[in-house]
Structure formats: structure tokens, C-alpha cells
């Protein structure tokens, strides 16, 4: 038989990363862009991408320094064993929260728009079970199914993005630069940056997945292009949203993209794009959630050093379910989400930067002695 591969190539990583960034980051980005930056929100996508570049560079550079090892495995080599345990635990907690939040977003959208009479917990449980099933196929299975659907998803995403410009008014995005010193001083922009970086949080998953990449020399290019494409598509919808309703108008909706989908028709056949967009967004979000779920389970497996990720999937199932259900309450969400994005910014942006600087200061070991695929 042809050799079984447990690695993923650059093509599969490209599609996995695209789904993770787009499937997770799309939903709230336009709201945050309008809320914190007003008309200047149209530059939100560019800001997100600029913030993601160092993170992606650190993912690949640490991946090259510690080949075949995930963050959980190379942490003890960068810091000492005890801090490594603490940092590893914090990182895993963040991955669990990311999985929960990703699940929560899509469940709430379906509950609100399509299944209002179905209890939220049922929808959430159903989606979680499918993520649980997808995760059982491992990173290879997840990335393969992502790759298979990629073309179809991209076509509909492009269709949605282009169609969303139907009622675009140029006046709503003018002036294109409207920064005020007052907002800068009171920290509104900083807060906005942290909230917009929500789109970049899926990069946390890459620290666990990167060791599976078979051709590491293409790693950075692959991650930059896939993240860039996802952010570009998000950016285009941010612009169309602000262009249609204005920056204040966007804030009247909980889920601006859904309103856009409901009001926008596919040219000629006059079908709302909602019919196509919702399943596509659901699929992308499912893959994003599954990759986070896998990264968490794999991380737990490496953290505790016992059993493989399949066992931890079962342990994580109730934890994710109940944590997600607990955050259903709107008040809880509003109060917790600010902390969550701040926590995410710390774990995905500041912490890797810190680790990378320490790794730079330490003498580099030979690649051959460190080789070994994580199991």
C-alpha cells in the first residue's frame, strides 16, 4: 500500500488556515471595526493583517527552531519546566475558550435567525457533536475535507462579497481618514486594535498544527497568503457594510453580515444570498472550530503526556459544551468578551513574542537532534 501520511502539505495548511481565520474571524469583525474606528473601520482588515504578520512569522520561526515539536513540547526548552507548565496550561485554557466562543457564535446566529423555537443548547450540542466527529479524523482528515470544500466555499464567499456592494454609498465611507487625538488618548483605538485582533486569534491553533507541515520552507508564505486572502475577504465586507449603513448604522445590528445577506440579492435570480451564505459560513466555522478542538485535544495529550488526542476529545466534550452554554447569557457575553479578546491578544500576540525573544537569546540546537514528530 502507498505510505500513509500523517503530515499535511502546504496546500492543505493553506486551506485549513483560511477556514480558521475566515470561519472564526468573519462574524464580528465588521461590528468591531465600526464600533471602535467609525468610518476608519474600512482600514480594519489592513490593521488586522499587519498585526498577524509577526505572529505568523513567530509560528514558522519557532517551528524551524524546534522541528517536529508543538508549542507544548518546545516550551520547556525555551523556559524552565515549571513556567512551561504554567504557560502551557494557560495556552490550553485559551484554546478551550476559543473553541467555545467559535461554537457559541454560530449557534447563536442559527438560533436567532433560522431556528428561533429550537433551544440554543440543542443547536449548540448538535454543532459540537459534528465538530467532535470531524476532530476524530485527525488533522489530516480535517484539512482534507476543508480542502475539498474550499473551491465551492470560495465561489460563494466571493459571490456574497461582490453582491454585498449593491447598495453601497460612497458618502458613507468618507472621509477615509478621520482619526482624532481624543480617541487615541482615551484608548479607544487601542481597545479597537485588541478587538479587531479577534480575527487573528485562530493563529493560536497553528502553534499546535505547524509540526505536521511536511514542507516547512513554504510555511511562512503559505500562512501569509492564506491569512491575507481571508482578511482581504473580511475587509471587503467591512467596507461594504460601512458603505451601506454608515459606521453608526452598522451598530444597530447584532450580526451585520446576516442583515447584509438578507437584504442582498444575487443579481438576476433575486434570491437572497442568505440561503447560500449561511451554510457556507457554518461550514467554515465548523472547520475552524474543529481545528481548535483538535489543537486543544492534541495539546492536552502532549501536556499530560498520556493517551492520544482521541481520548481527550471525550474529556473536552462536556467542558466545551457547558462552558459554551454558560456563556449564552447576553450579559455574561458582554462582560466576558472584552476580557476574552484581551486574554487572546496576550496569548496569541504578546506571549509568542516573548517566547520568541527568549528563544533568540538561547543557543540554537541542531535540527537533526531535535527531530521527532509529535504524536
Amino acid at each position, binding site marked *: 500500500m502507498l505510505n500513509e501520511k500523517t503530515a499535511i502539505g502546504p496546500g492543505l495548511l493553506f486551506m485549513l488556515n483560511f477556514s480558521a481565520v475566515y470561519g472564526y474571524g468573519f462574524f464580528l469583525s465588521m461590528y468591531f471595526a465600526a464600533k471602535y474606528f467609525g468610518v476608519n473601520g474600512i482600514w480594519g482588515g489592513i490593521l488586522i493583517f499587519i498585526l498577524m504578520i509577526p505572529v505568523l512569522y513567530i509560528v514558522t520561526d519557532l517551528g524551524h527552531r524546534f522541528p517536529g515539536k508543538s508549542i507544548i513540547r518546545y516550551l520547556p526548552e525555551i523556559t524552565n519546566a515549571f513556567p512551561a507548565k504554567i504557560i502551557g496550561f494557560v495556552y490550553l485554557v485559551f484554546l478551550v475558550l476559543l473553541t467555545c466562543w467559535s461554537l457559541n457564535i454560530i449557534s447563536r446566529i*442559527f438560533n436567532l435567525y*433560522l431556528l428561533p423555537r*429550537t433551544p440554543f443548547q440543542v443547536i449548540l450540542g448538535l454543532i459540537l457533536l459534528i465538530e467532535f466527529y470531524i476532530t476524530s479524523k485527525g488533522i489530516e*482528515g480535517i484539512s482534507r*475535507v476543508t480542502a*475539498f470544500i474550499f473551491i465551492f466555499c470560495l465561489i460563494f464567499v466571493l459571490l456574497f462579497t461582490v453582491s454585498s456592494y449593491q447598495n453601497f454609498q460612497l458618502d458613507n465611507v468618507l472621509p477615509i481618514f478621520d482619526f482624532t487625538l481624543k480617541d487615541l488618548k482615551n484608548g479607544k483605538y487601542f481597545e479597537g486594535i485588541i478587538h479587531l485582533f479577534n480575527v487573528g486569534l485562530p493563529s493560536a491553533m497553528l502553534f499546535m498544527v505547524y509540526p505536521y507541515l511536511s514542507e516547512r520552507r513554504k510555511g511562512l508564505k503559505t500562512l501569509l497568503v492564506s491569512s491575507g486572502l481571508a482578511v482581504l475577504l473580511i475587509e471587503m465586507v467591512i467596507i461594504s457594510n460601512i458603505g451601506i449603513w454608515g459606521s453608526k448604522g452598522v451598530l444597530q445590528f447584532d450580526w451585520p453580515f446576516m442583515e447584509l445577506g438578507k437584504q442582498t440579492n444575487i443579481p438576476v435570480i433575486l*434570491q*437572497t444570498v442568505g440561503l447560500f451564505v449561511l451554510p457556507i459560513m457554518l461550514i467554515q466555522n465548523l472547520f475552524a472550530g474543529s481545528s481548535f478542538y483538535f489543537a486543544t485535544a492534541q495539546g492536552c495529550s502532549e501536556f499530560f503526556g498520556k493517551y492520544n488526542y482521541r481520548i481527550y476529545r471525550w474529556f473536552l466534550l462536556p467542558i466545551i459544551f457547558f462552558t459554551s452554554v454558560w456563556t449564552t447569557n447576553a450579559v455574561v457575553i458582554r462582560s466576558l468578551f472584552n476580557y476574552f479578546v484581551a486574554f487572546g491578544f496576550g496569548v496569541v500576540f504578546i506571549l509568542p513574542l516573548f517566547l520568541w525573544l527568549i528563544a533568540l537569546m538561547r543557543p540554537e540546537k541542531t535540527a537533526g537532534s531535535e527531530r521527532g514528530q509529535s504524536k
Partner: protein
Amino acid sequence: MIFERFFNNYRKMTRFPKVKNTVVDHQPINGDCEVDLRTLLGLVGNPADLVIHRMENNQNKAVAVLLYLSSLASGIDLATHIVEPLNYLLSDSTGKNPDPGQVRRVLVAAQISATTDLHQAIEYLIRGNALLFLNGSSQVWTVAFPGFPRRQIEEPPTERVVRGSREGFTDVLGDNLGLVRRWIRDPNLRVELQIIGERTKTDVAVLYLNDVANPDVVREVKKRLGKIRIDGILDSGYILEMITDQRWTLFPLVQETERPDKVAAGILEGRVAILVDKSPFALLVPVTSTEFYQTSEDFYLNYWVGTFIRVLRGIGTFISVTLPGLYVSIIAVNPILAPSSLIQILASGRTQVPVPVIFEVLLVFIIFEIFREAVIRIPSSVNMILGIAGGVLIGLLATQSGLVAGPTIIIVIISSLSSFTTANTSKEQAWRLVRYFLLLAGAGFGVLGLTLAGVMVLTHMASLKSFGVSYLGPWAPPLALDMIDAYFRIPWWLSYRRPSVYRPQQEDRLGDSGEEDARNAE
């Protein structure tokens, strides 16, 4: 214990201890025809179709015995080419035993061999050979003059084409091998025979191009075939189930075909073909999901037309699988997602229907499935009339009486007919069942359920492999050239390479042979 059998069923549990097979030991030939004949009859009983022909010398003493099964061997050919020259030879002999060397010289047949083992001789006999015992000789001659009834070469009923070869496989392995050999006249075409089935002793041939097929795949095919332990193989379907990578899946991981040109094309791509005696269906491995949407005809027609038909098949399958689920989702759960004018039309057709839409759709589907099954069994002279009359009348009356809405019948018919665009029966049947799964998921949770069920099916497919090749190849993992070939029928003058998804030894297919070797050498 019982589950162990299901999950690890290489070894079959038997209720009674297996009796010793009657034809496994070695038993030498006695050298006296009559004694050998009696021993043989003791082992095989006295079959009704066994013909025993004693040949005597000029002193009326039987010195040779020819026996064969009249149901398998040609009596006329044997009489002409064996009995007559032997009688002529023996009529000159004077009492002593016939000389085997002289006898061999007068035997005229395509296949003649000798054995010294009586049990092996019996195996030859039941395969259709004639046995010739000679007095004083410790070996028995086996002569092949096949005379069993065989089907003529016909156009395969499941894979008809407008343009292309009209040849289909028959039920005889020898004929089928000949059909493939006529397509590929290359000494590198390897044909390796295995005998599988303790009692049926079925010939199974493995065909591949020695310098093209991936040796790992060839080795794995032979290994899996060698592991099969079963009393009988009656069709290639037995082999298919035994060698498949994932036994519990709905989707075919081995391609079946009745067309020799398709087998030849597969072999040329670097795949391995398995032909089974008494089965007109050849097997091709490895296979990706894409292969089931390609027909031989695609490659014979203009490439634009081929591309159009190929895309059409994909759309047809998508419609067939998702349309009923989407219809039920929109009617029953998420009407908000469809244009109001469409919803009005659908709703107005259902005003008198007394049951929920899911029951209505299921009812029509089940009736349609019953029709489909019945039409296969009904004699061909009346099935057209009964099928059309039954279908039209019942459809019309059901709609008029208000039991079923018109749009539902339209959806079911479109969905059922679209399913036949899949160019493979096994794959079509797999999608047929998936359709019901999506239908129920859509009825339960609308578009959410439909999407989740669809993702589940695709995830399952993504985890499948056929002899190590990803079932969703060439999309996952993405192989750019093969992906283009999956959607478009690439013109032959641009088809430089064999599909790399099968990882053949030689990838080049256009240009002079040896160019790739030269490149590799550089």
C-alpha cells in the same frame, strides 16, 4: 465473541469443525487404467456428466482411458483430435502397453500437460480438461478442449456509450484477458493468476503495467487477495468487499466496470485491474471519488463536449443528493431563505395535503423506489407499459386527490433521475442512501441540519483511502493538474502526464518513451 467476528472477520467462525477437503492430498498414479479409474470414481462419485471412453489395442484389451465432463469439455473436438488418432495408433500395437512418447506425438490440442498426482488430475477434470490414463504409465495426460456454454461479447448494459467500443466483458476469464490484451499490446503488461475459493477454485487475474504501476499498490493487491479465505467466489463483488480498505463504508473504494477499454485506460494510468472468472465486472484499484464521474466516452468525444458532460454529472449528483433535503428544509423549517414568490407557489400546491412535507416526500420516494425495483423484475415486454402507465397514472391521481403536492412529485422525479448521471452504479446507490440521510436531517433542523449532515458525509469521505490514495483526491490533498482534469476533460495533446494522485512510476504519457528516464538520469 460475536462482535469479534464482525470486526475482525478474516477468519470465519465455524459451528462445526471443518472436514478435511477431499482433494488436498497427493496420490500417485497406479499405472493400471482400470485401477486408477476406480480410485478416481471413488473420489468424485459417479457424476452424471462424466464420459468414460476406453480405448483398446488390437487384442481388445483396454490400454487407455479418456474421461471428461461432457458439461465442460467439447466431446466432438476430443473425438476428432484425441480419440481418433489414438485408436489409429493403438490398433497397430500388439498387446504391450502404449508408449507415452508416441501417444504424446499424436495428441493435437492447444493445451496439453501431464501430472503424476491423481488429485491434481481431478482438479484438471473439474476445470473442464479431459484426462487420458495409459496403462503402464505413472502419469496422466490432461487435454484442454473447453466446451462449456459461453456468452457472446455484447455491449455492456450498464455502461452504454454513443461513441466508443461496443465490447463488454463476458463471464469467461480467458476471453476477458484477451479483450484487455487486444487493447494493450505491451510486453510489460503483467497478468498474474491466483486461485481463490476452497471449493469454487475461482481464477482471479491481476493485471498491471510493470513499469508504470506503483509497485507498492501491486504488492498490496496481491497481499490482500492472498489473505482471502472463503469457500467460494461467485462474482467479483466478493473480491471487492474483501479487499476494500474500509469495510463499513457506504462508498465504493474499488471501481467496477464492464468495459475493457476502461480497464485498459486504468492500467495505462498506472492502476491495477483485477479480473475474476465468471464475472463480467472487472475491478480497478486504487480509485478516487472523481473516477466515478468519468466515462470512456468523455475521452472519445470533443473535449469541450466531454467537459460539459462531466460538469453536468457533478451538478446532477449534487441536485440528486441535496434537492429533497433542501426542499423539505425550506418548506418545513426555513421558508425565510427562499424568495417569497417561490414559497407562494410551493405553499399553494400543498394546501390540501394532509401530512407534513417530510412524510409526503418520503412516501413518494418509497413509491418511486418500489417502482424502480419492480421494473427490473417485470418481464421486459411489459415493463415499459406498466412503468409508464403506473407512474403517470399514480402520479396524476395522487396529485388530483390532494394526497401529494405537485412540486413534491417534481422534486422526487428530478432528484431520482439526476442520480443516474453518476457514471457508476455503486456510487449512485451510495448517494441514493445519503439522500435519505440529508432529507431527514433537513426535516429536523432545516438548513442547519442539512449542512451538518452534508459536512458529516464529506468528512467521512475525506477519511477514506483506496489502497493508500485519498478518496477525495485530487482535491484533498490538492494536486493542481489533476484538479483541472477532474472538472475539465483535458485535450489529449495537453495530457502530458498520468494522474499523479495514483503515484505511477512513469508520469509522462506524451512524447517519446525514454525521455523521462533521460531526465531522471540527468
